[in-house]
């Protein structure tokens, strides 16, 4: 289902056309239960508390992301207009690469997938948009894409595929995840992720068997690396900001100091539960697989034993020995369940837990403040 997406670079690079898969479809994975469990040694990697490795530690081409205020406003506005409900909204980021910094200077939204718009050509839209933007001197280099998320549930197969195709074509591309619900709680939540090189390797080979993953030593924390973001505004925009502050009469609402937490916690926990359910199903599958494998081993062993026994018997009786049958044909090894989904689910659960912990720590702080306030009363 690899469909084209557009990657445009000025000058030298050839155009690659591979379409992004639609946001809410998952590639079908046959989850049949068997696994060939080979025992390997695995060096334990320390499980850090962060969802992803900070980019500075790896040898990646992008160490920092610089976003213009305009992009932030556009993303916020796009979600506000189109994204009510749990639909994700997506768009394309434009910018340029300066040394080890990725500067994002503009963006444009992508229309949502509608069923009745079957002949809508995404590639066409993208090409036209970028062509038009080129006329008004907006950077037309594709440097990534953005997506909104619902309570932090963005680690999915679709995202992985999209980001892989982007990163494959454009080395420095990132995906910006905008969390509108967290933003509405008081502070802008915008995170930039890239795939780790290890994961890129795996995706390239499309080999998701456990052996491959083991070889690459990938845990769920090593899937994405988070790149720090800074926001930079031009002088003119700063002037505008000063002006706006004077003229706008919107009061500061201080949502960040809001004490109510149960609603948010409830939803987060609900999502977490769903994911954990998925995970347990996956584990069950894996266990069945491993059980099957061991059973098969036993059967094989038994069969071999019986064979040898029979053969010795026959020899003692003077009959020709039965031919050795091909083991592999008789005992088909059970198929290993692909581990990519498990990785993704684990990553997602990790993300949820992270968010919940952040939320609770903030709320604890607020509660203590409220206590202090009440104490004076």
């Amino acid at each position, binding site marked *: 289902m690899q469909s084209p997406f557009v990657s445009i670079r000025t000058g030298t690079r050839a155009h690659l056309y591979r379409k992004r898969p639609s946001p809410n479809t998952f590639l079908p994975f046959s989850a049949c239960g068997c696994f060939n469990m080979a025992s390997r040694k695995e060096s334990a990697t320390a499980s850090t508390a962060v969802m992803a490795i900070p980019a500075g530690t790896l040898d990646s081409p992008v160490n920092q992301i610089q976003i213009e205020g305009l992009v932030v406003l556009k993303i916020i*506005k796009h979600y506000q207009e189109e994204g009510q409900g749990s639909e994700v909204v997506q768009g394309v980021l434009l910018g340029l690469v300066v040394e080890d910094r990725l500067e994002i200077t503009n963006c444009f939204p992508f229309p949502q997938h509608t069923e009745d718009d079957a002949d809508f050509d995404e590639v066409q839209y993208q090409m036209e948009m970028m062509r038009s933007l080129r006329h*008004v001197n*907006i950077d037309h280099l594709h440097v990534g894409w953005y997506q909104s998320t619902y309570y932090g549930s963005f680690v999915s197969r679709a995202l992985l595929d999209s980001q892989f195709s982007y990163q494959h074509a454009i080395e420095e591309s990132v995906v910006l995840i905008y969390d509108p619900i967290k933003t509405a709680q008081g502070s802008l939540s915008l995170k930039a992720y890239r795939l780790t090189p290890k994961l890129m390797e795996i995706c390239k080979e499309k080999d998701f068997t456990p052996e491959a993953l083991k070889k690459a030593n990938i845990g769920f924390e090593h899937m994405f690396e988070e790149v720090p*973001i800074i926001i930079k505004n031009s002088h003119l925009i700063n002037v*505008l900001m000063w002006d706006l502050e004077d003229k706008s009469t919107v009061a500061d609402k201080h949502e960040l100091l809001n004490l109510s937490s149960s609603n948010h916690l409830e939803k987060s926990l609900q999502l977490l539960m769903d994911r954990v359910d998925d995970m347990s199903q996956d584990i069950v599958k894996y266990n069945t697989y491993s059980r099957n494998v061991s059973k098969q081993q036993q059967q094989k062993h038994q069969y071999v034993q019986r064979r040898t026994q029979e053969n010795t018997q026959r020899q003692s009786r003077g009959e020709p020995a039965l031919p050795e049958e091909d083991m592999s044909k008789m005992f088909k090894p059970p198929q290993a369940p692909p581990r990519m989904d498990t990785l993704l689910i684990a990553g997602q659960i990790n993300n949820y837990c992270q968010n919940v912990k952040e939320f609770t*720590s903030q709320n604890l702080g607020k509660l203590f403040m409220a206590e202090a306030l009440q104490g004076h009363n």
Partner: protein
Amino acid sequence: YEVPDGPEEEPRDGVGHDEDEERGAPVEVHQRGEDVGQVAAESLTPAEASLSFSCTTFFLGSLAWAFRSANLAWKDLLTLANSGGVDGVSVVTIWPSSSDRLKTPVASAATSTSSSSPFSSTGSERESGREGNTEFSSAMAYICPSPYRAAACRRSANRPLHAAQRGEVPEALYPVLQSSFSNMSVYGPVVKIHPVVLASICDSYERRNEGASRCIGTLLGTVDKHSIEVTNCFSVAVDMEFAKNMYELHKRVSPTEVIIGWYATGFDITEHSVLIHEYYSREATNPIHLTMDTALQSSKMSIRAYVSAQMGVPGKTVGVMFTPLTVKYVYFDTERIGVDLLQRTRVLPSRTKGLTSDLSQVGGSAARVQDMLTTMLAYIDDVLSGKVAADNSVGRFLMDLVNKVPTISAEDFENMLNSNINDLLMVTYLSNLTQAQIALNEKLVLL
């Protein structure tokens, strides 16, 4: 009331120039005669009276000549004079037709009391004189028969009358009236702008082609009965075909947005504006025109919106007048939070700001509240020590504030606090547990 006779006294520099008007052509302010001022004062509030007395500006000498030749009654002149300057701003520029060119521009600029006065006359046009193709229609300058009426007209901003309706303006007069009123918009819907539009305009201005002094684009948004909400925009560089294409593309994403007008950077409204506006009025009914002074001519970025109206003498020359509208800035909640973050970049010399996380955000927010409290306490101290006069409304707000802290018995509060804290701790524990679980699972699988 009495009519002042003859050309007025010598002009003298008016009072209360606004920095908006320090531009090319000199602005001459003329002071009205006392009688008229007083008469006007009777029908106005004291503030208005003093303002109109001190700031109605008319070059009545040449004006009188022009109108006399046009056989306009003095009454109309006076009301024309009075029709400006109630709340402090009026610019009435009258150009005779090219055949009737006066040596001095028959222009008058008014003063303004507030800094954001809408001001829409162009120096260049003043010099050259403009052919008026006017056709009077409704919603024009307030040309009312008497100063009383003028005051009433001013106050009830939705009842403009125009001279042609009363058949009093002779056809011989071909003026192009361009008037702007005070920042109380007089006609037209309120324009609500989102910050993303302004940032987009700034950005497109920064990226304009070499040699272009201003840049132009389309505004998209939604129209309501009494307001127009501008939510998006894109810049137009090449031609109108390009603009149409862009609009189509944008419509794919947000089908509810329609073209509601256009913007231009720069301070003035030029002749080109009229042409472009005409084009846009084909695309949208009653388009609005937004100007944003990115060159910061008046040391601030004056953002103004106008709606166009036709005016002139029916059957003869017709012109276009841009009347200003009230501009408001609206934000979605999340937008405001985003803008908040962006505001913080302007204080740092490097103009950059990282995104904070976790408790530091709460800390920052609390610090802001603390600052506000400190300011308040300082004010209260001042009031108590007599340095500042006490203000009742502020006192009431403070009372409100103090009462807002709920009085709960200590026990109840303890209970609430503890149960909340327990909830949060439990959730934290659960999430830590889950994380440990999946890590374990991973290790086991990969064994």
